[in-house]
């Protein structure tokens, strides 16, 4: 592309207009903002020097996005009204496109100016509220459903390179950031009326062909002695993210300091923490938490004590702010000795159910919160990436104490509405103020995981009851293994079936019991025919007799004819029936049996001693001896033993879940 060369009207330095769309260029020598008009160049004022961050981007960097080559030609650094800065890089494409690459908290968003269809006019700034969904239709007819993440005032505090619009140093403008599914990102700029829409997507350095970039080596800024020392007590302060830090808590005098362009200003003395527990981890500690941090190490740069008040009782917990220049900011939450790793998620990916819960909320929220977040009624459940999360808590979370650095203007007593939804081991949390809404996803971590990551071994271990809201049941192993072993038992039973011999009858004989005198029944001794038994097979002796309102009792001895070893069994048989009040009744049975485990192989004979009331007629008794009868006792015993584990686990799980939900304000028996 052709380059227009001119001289800075302020210092005379050489200015190179590389991009044809440039309206304002920042002189690299004197930092004047020079506007290009049809009458020439105008000096419109000095611009503050860019606060160098760990950004891997720089003016002149070239990349490729979706096959189109580009160069970064300009940069404006903006500050949010609540603190926090972000960069807007101006992307000049070889094909003439002009894009805006927003870099904020380690994330990148590439957007382009889009004109909207007249059928969906853009809402006014006052009409937007965090959490509200709007539908935008661009000129090509494509519609986007977007959710408002935040709205506020942005101030352009510094710039460099070439700016494609009438940039004015320190100009403040209203803006709103929105997001949609599939990483769609949009900004509404209310500098003009109607507002200007910038629409695009979240991108990675890899998407831009810049994956080889590393964060710039940040040299510790050698500011004046006042700036790096606490302005209140003079204690030395070491800022870990000086380019992003907005607030610092001095650990020596407990002062809350405001950080502005590297200068610290005393704001207030922090009240002591009302939480008796000390922080378990220290500022400066580093850890890599596997895939959660892309195997990168993150450093603790700040910590805070927060609380919620439920039914008049305050509950405290600790939150640690983690930072890595490539990843941005994350949180580690420590509550009741349980740990959660928390990362921000796109609000547009959250789908709220239509079943709303309002009654509980109105009782706990102050009026101003209810009004401000009216668009966000609390749903009983939300879905995120295919998972359903149930509401667990909705309360006001308050900052009780801070230490270290923070990327926003945190204050002691700062309050947000916090709604938690759970799907163990995950927790979706929504924090809302009247200006912004933030969703985050918490991943439950065990104490041992945190200890291993940070190289400590003295973290307190939580008790099993009550569990953390999103703590997974820790004994699923026993349930899964127990069920697997039961299935294995069934498989073994089926597999071994062909190897079991079929049942065989070794004796079938009818003996006759002579008539007896019921008044004085005398035992009768009878013998069966000899028969042969196999070893390793059980023995079932069956007896049946056609009794009618009488009984007999058979004492049977199984006698081994070789060694006279005896195994005795008793088989009583009785049967009674009649008619009473016109209804037939019966009691007992005409047959019975006895079961023996396997006996040594050999020849046997039955010695039967029969007593009973046979009446005046002889009673024929059918005797059968069977072997290898499948009774299922082995299977039943094994099944019962293997069921103990799963049954106990299921009971424990029931208690675990009840204990979990007992802590929820939405729990009902």
């Amino acid at each position, binding site marked *: 592309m052709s380059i227009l060369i001119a001289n800075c009207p302020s210092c005379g330095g050489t200015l190179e207009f590389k991009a044809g769309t440039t309206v304002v260029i920042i002189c690299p020598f004197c930092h004047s903002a020079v506007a290009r008009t049809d009458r020439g160049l105008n000096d419109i004022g000095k611009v503050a020097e860019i606060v160098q961050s760990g950004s891997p981007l720089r003016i002149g960097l070239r990349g490729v996005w979706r096959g189109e080559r580009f160069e970064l030609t300009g940069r404006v650094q903006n500050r949010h009204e609540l603190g926090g800065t972000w960069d807007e890089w101006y992307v000049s494409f070889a094909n003439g496109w002009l894009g805006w690459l927003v870099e904020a908290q380690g994330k990148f968003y590439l957007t382009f100016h889009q004109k909207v269809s007249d059928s969906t006019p853009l809402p006014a700034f006052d009409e937007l509220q965090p959490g509200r969904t709007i539908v935008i239709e661009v000129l090509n007819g494509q519609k986007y459903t977007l959710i408002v993440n935040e709205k506020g005032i942005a101030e352009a505090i510094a710039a460099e390179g070439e700016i494609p619009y009438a940039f004015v140093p320190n100009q403040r403008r209203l803006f709103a950031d929105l997001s949609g599914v599939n990483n769609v990102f949009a900004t509404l700029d209310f500098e003009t009326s109607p507002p200007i829409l910038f629409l695009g997507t979240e991108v990675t350095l890899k998407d831009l062909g810049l994956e080889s970039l590393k964060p710039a080596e940040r040299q510790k800024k050698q500011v004046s002695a006042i700036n790096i020392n606490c302005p209140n007590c003079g204690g030395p302060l070491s800022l870990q993210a000086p380019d992003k830090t907005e607030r610092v808590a001095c650990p020596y005098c407990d002062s809350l300091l405001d950080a502005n362009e590297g200068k610290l200003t005393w704001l207030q003395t922090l009240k002591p923490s009302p939480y008796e527990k000390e922080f378990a981890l220290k500022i400066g500690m580093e850890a890599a938490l596997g895939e959660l941090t892309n195997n990168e190490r993150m450093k603790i740069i700040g910590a805070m004590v927060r609380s919620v008040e439920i039914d008049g009782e305050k509950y405290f917990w600790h939150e640690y702010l983690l930072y890595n220049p490539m990843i941005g900011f994350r949180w580690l939450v420590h509550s009741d000795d349980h740990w959660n790793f928390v990362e921000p998620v796109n609000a547009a990916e959250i789908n709220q159910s239509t079943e709303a819960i309002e009654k509980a909320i109105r009782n706990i929220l102050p009026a101003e919160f209810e009004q401000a977040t009216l668009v966000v009624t609390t749903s009983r459940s939300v879905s995120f990436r295919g998972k359903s999360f149930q509401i667990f808590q909705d309360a006001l979370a308050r900052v009780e104490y801070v230490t270290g650095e923070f990327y926003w203007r945190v204050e002691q007593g700062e309050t947000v509405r916090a709604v938690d939804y759970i799907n163990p081991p995950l927790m979706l949390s929504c924090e809302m103020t009247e200006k912004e809404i933030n969703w985050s996803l918490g991943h439950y971590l065990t104490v041992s995981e945190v200890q291993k990551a940070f190289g400590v071994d003295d973290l307190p271990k939580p008790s099993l009851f009550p569990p953390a809201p999103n703590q997974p049941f820790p004994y699923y192993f026993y349930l899964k293994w127990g069920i697997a072993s039961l299935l294995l038992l069934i498989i*073994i039973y089926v597999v071994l079936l062909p190897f079991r011999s079929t049942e065989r009858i070794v004796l079938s004989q009818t003996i006759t019991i002579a008539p007896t005198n019921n008044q004085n029944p005398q035992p009768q001794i009878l013998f069966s025919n000899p028969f042969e038994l196999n070893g390793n097979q059980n023995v079932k002796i069956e007896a049946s007799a056609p009794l009618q309102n009488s009984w007999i009792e058979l004492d049977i001895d199984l006698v081994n004819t070789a060694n006279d070893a005896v*195994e005795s069994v008793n088989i009583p048989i009785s049967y009674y029936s009649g008619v009473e009040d016109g209804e037939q009744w019966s009691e007992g049975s005409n047959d019975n049996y006895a*079961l023996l485990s396997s006996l040594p192989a050999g020849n046997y004979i039955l010695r039967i001693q029969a007593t009973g009331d046979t009446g005046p007629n002889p009673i024929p008794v059918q005797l059968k001896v069977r072997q290898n009868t499948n009774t299922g006792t082995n299977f039943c015993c094994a099944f019962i033993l293997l069921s103990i*584990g799963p049954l106990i686990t299921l009971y424990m799980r029931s208690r675990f879940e009840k204990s979990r939900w007992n802590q929820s304000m939405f729990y009902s028996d």
Partner: protein
Amino acid sequence: MKVLYVIFTLTVLVLYTMATWFGWEIASSGKRSGLRLPFITGFRGGK
């Protein structure tokens, strides 16, 4: 604890397999027998 539980379940499965293969069975014996699910009077192996 997990190891103990696995050992316990595997032991039950191995014992069941061996009992089925060798024909061992828990059963009652003696004068008052005939129980279908015995846990009382004894166990006798094969051979």
